[in-house]
């Protein structure tokens, strides 16, 4: 054993150690004392190796030993200690604990509770992912214990059911279920005894004894011996009975099986009493009561106290926990509320700041935008003026007038120079205002077209067709110099490149609440014009269309007047038609 001790304490590989230790403990070659010793060592070693699960395993073993010894207090204490560990590791020890505790509680006079514990153990056991043989062994144990509880509670039918069940199962397991099988046989013997079938009882118990013979199932042996003695006692074969009782007594003394010891002493005392051997009976009774009291004192008070304490403590702890939880929850709620309020506050502040800056920014942007629009509007107006007074038109027009002079056409020289001056004057005047009446705009356009006609001669024809009433023409206000750039475009990019007749048609009409202003030419069209312009790399860009569209945008943004521009490319004959839709 000492060399065994050496071996145990030299083992350092924890996993290997655990498996090895289980095997060692299950080895039937060790007697109970040796096993007790081994288990103590393993408990120490597993503590050293910080192997909680294995530690619990061996502590459980110890608990079982304590149960067999009759020290329920310690056994239950151990169970108390290891049950949380077992739960944590989801170990098979957990139902084992219920089994053990249930058995003890039943013996303490609470079979109902014991049955509940055992049923829980039975219910729990198959949930472990372990080899079936291990599960079955555990179940056999539970059935056995449950059967025993029932039998002690004289519920013999239920008892038989579970005892048989455990026995059948143990038989199926084979070699590993040997002890359980033995126990099962003995238990059946006990059951037959209770059912008053004494011969069968003795037969089973003898069978059980025989099977335990080559193994160190000392407790079972004692148990079997006691049961045989019980049977003989009942049959009136007192000699045989005393023989077996004493065999059992020797063994229980030797192996410190206190519980059975008390039982046997009690039975002997009674048997002697029955046989009117009062002296002997008294001795056994004294011995019994001494041992029983010892044990009873230790256990009954302790265990019941323990149980009560445990329950109370559990309740207390539960209550404390609940109280604590409520407190924590309240605190949490308060904190959450505080955090909520703070977050809300912060959000409101951030939102406020954001809105403030956003508003300021918006205001500023708006101002900038307005300024920008105003600036651009002025710029676009200037462009309109520029297009009216563009040097090319101005000087070519003057050149044409000069021709009239050179040709000595004094009348026309006079008239056209006057018209030119009038156009210049009006352009300057209208460039100072935002809007003019449609009538004035058309008047100016006509002046412009007259001068263009002077340049281009008979090929160039224009018509201005105003279908509006005179009142409308005077009252409807449009942005000043709106028409000019489109008219100029039609001439410059459409008609100028065209050979032969050049026609420009301006028409104004009303369509519901919209004034339609169309400028139609029979020029070369936009596509061809673009081709020509792109070829003329050196030509200074004067394509004013984009600028015009920008102006419409600007007018819309500044005054809300939404003038819609539509450009239509005409074919056969080619040309371009521009329609300005002005809401009135």
């Amino acid at each position, binding site marked *: 054993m000492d060399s065994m001790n050496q071996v145990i304490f030299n083992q350092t590989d924890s996993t290997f150690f655990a498996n090895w230790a289980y095997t060692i403990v299950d080895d039937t070659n060790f007697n109970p004392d040796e096993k007790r010793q081994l288990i103590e060592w393993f408990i120490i070693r597993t503590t050293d190796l910080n192997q909680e699960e294995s530690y619990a395993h061996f502590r459980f073993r110890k608990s079982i030993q304590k149960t067999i010894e009759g020290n329920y207090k310690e056994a239950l204490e151990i169970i108390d200690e290891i049950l949380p560990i077992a739960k944590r590791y989801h170990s098979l020890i957990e139902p084992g604990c219920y089994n053990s505790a249930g058995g003890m509680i039943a013996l303490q006079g609470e079979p109902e509770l014991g049955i509940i514990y055992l049923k829980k153990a039975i219910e729990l056991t198959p949930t472990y992912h372990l080899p079936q043989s291990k599960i079955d062994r555990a179940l056999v144990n539970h059935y056995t214990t449950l059967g025993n509880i029932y039998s002690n509670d004289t519920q013999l039918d239920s008892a038989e059911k579970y005892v048989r069940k455990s026995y059948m199962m143990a038989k199926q397991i084979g070699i590993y279920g040997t002890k359980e099988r033995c126990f099962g046989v003995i238990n059946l013997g006990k059951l037959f005894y209770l059912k008053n079938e004494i011969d069968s009882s003795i037969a089973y118990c003898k069978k059980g004894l025989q099977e335990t013979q080559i193994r160190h199932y000392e407790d079972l042996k004692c148990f079997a011996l006691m049961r045989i003695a019980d049977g003989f006692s009942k049959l009136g074969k007192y000699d045989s009975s005393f023989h077996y009782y004493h065999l059992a007594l020797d063994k229980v003394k030797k192996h410190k099986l206190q519980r059975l010891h008390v039982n046997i002493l009690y039975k002997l005392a009674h048997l002697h009493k029955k046989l009117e051997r009062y002296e002997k009976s008294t001795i056994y009774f004294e011995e019994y009561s001494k041992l029983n009291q010892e044990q009873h004192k230790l256990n009954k008070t302790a265990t019941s106290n323990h149980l009560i304490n445990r329950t109370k403590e559990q309740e207390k702890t539960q209550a404390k926990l609940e109280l604590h939880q409520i407190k924590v929850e309240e605190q949490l709620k308060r904190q959450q509320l505080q955090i909520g309020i703070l977050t809300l506050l912060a959000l409101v502040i951030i939102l406020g700041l954001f809105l403030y800056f956003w508003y300021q920014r918006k205001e500023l942007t708006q101002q900038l935008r307005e300024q920008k629009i105003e600036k651009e509007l002025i710029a676009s107006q200037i462009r309109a003026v520029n297009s009216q007074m563009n040097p090319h038109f101005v000087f070519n027009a*003057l050149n044409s*007038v000069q*021709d009239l002079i*050179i040709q000595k056409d004094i009348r026309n020289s006079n008239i056209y120079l006057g018209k030119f001056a009038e156009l210049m004057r009006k352009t300057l005047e209208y460039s100072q205002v935002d809007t003019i009446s449609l009538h004035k705009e058309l008047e100016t356009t006509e002046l412009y077209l007259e001068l263009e006609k*002077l*340049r281009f001669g008979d090929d160039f024809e224009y018509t201005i067709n105003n279908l509006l009433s005179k009142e409308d023409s005077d009252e409807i206000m449009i942005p000043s110099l709106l028409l000019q750039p489109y008219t100029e475009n039609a001439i410059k990019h459409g008609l*100028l*490149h065209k050979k032969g007749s050049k026609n420009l048609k301006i028409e104004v009409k009303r369509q519901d609440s919209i004034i339609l202003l169309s400028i139609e030419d029979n020029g070369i069209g936009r596509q061809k014009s673009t081709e020509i312009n792109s070829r003329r790399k050196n030509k200074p860009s004067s394509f004013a269309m984009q600028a015009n569209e920008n102006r419409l945008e600007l007018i819309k943004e500044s005054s809300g007047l939404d003038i819609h521009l539509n450009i239509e490319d005409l074919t056969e004959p080619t040309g371009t038609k521009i329609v300005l839709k002005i809401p009135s």
Partner: protein
Amino acid sequence: MTETIKAIIIDDEERARRLLSTTLTDHCSEIEVLAQCENVPEGVLAINRLKPDVVFLDIEMPEYTGFELLDFFREVDFEIIFVTAYSEYAIQAFEVSAIDYILKPIRIDKLETAVERLKSKLSSTTMFDRLETLKTNLASDYIEKIAVPVSDGLIFIKVNEISYIEADGSYAKLQLINGSNMLISKNLKFFKDLLKNQNHFYRVHRSHLLNMHTIQKYNRHESLVILENGTKIKVARDHKSSFETALKDLHSDS
């Protein structure tokens, strides 16, 4: 009797053609207008057929502009006088390209001067180059190339090849980076205006317009600029600080 100068007029406006033709006939007797054409292709045909000495050419015309006339000839052996209603900016490009022009409406005295110049005209062999120069200058935001009259004709110079221009009375001396120089009958102000959009030309002194790209060293204490060819030019005291700023700006730009 002076030799007749054969002329062709190209203008899309009938009235403009008639005006020019009448004015020339009435006031410039040596000019004989052989043909009046209303667009460039017609003009090209007429030139090839009639071999004129001079073409009065409008610029803004349908389809082909006056400038595009050049594309129809490999060599130009006639003078061109542009007749244009163009703006001032474009006029500068004409001047530096040594291309003659008259503005609409036509002034008789200007027309007479142009015809006078025509008579004493330098050989028209450079016409092609002058037109090319004009086109380059018109296409760009600033003057890139100038035609400089010298004793035997014209030299075309890229303004970036000028190292500095030195005033010499009503003349200007152009010093080129390659070491050569030439005297031109334009004053320094003319060049200053010409190059006003090109900020690497700086007038360091009343008499010196300097291409700052050619500066090798600037001596701040002595306010002296030393050029790559070793020439030293004094920076006027009242120009010093603005010159230094301009110099700094130029280097931060590039």
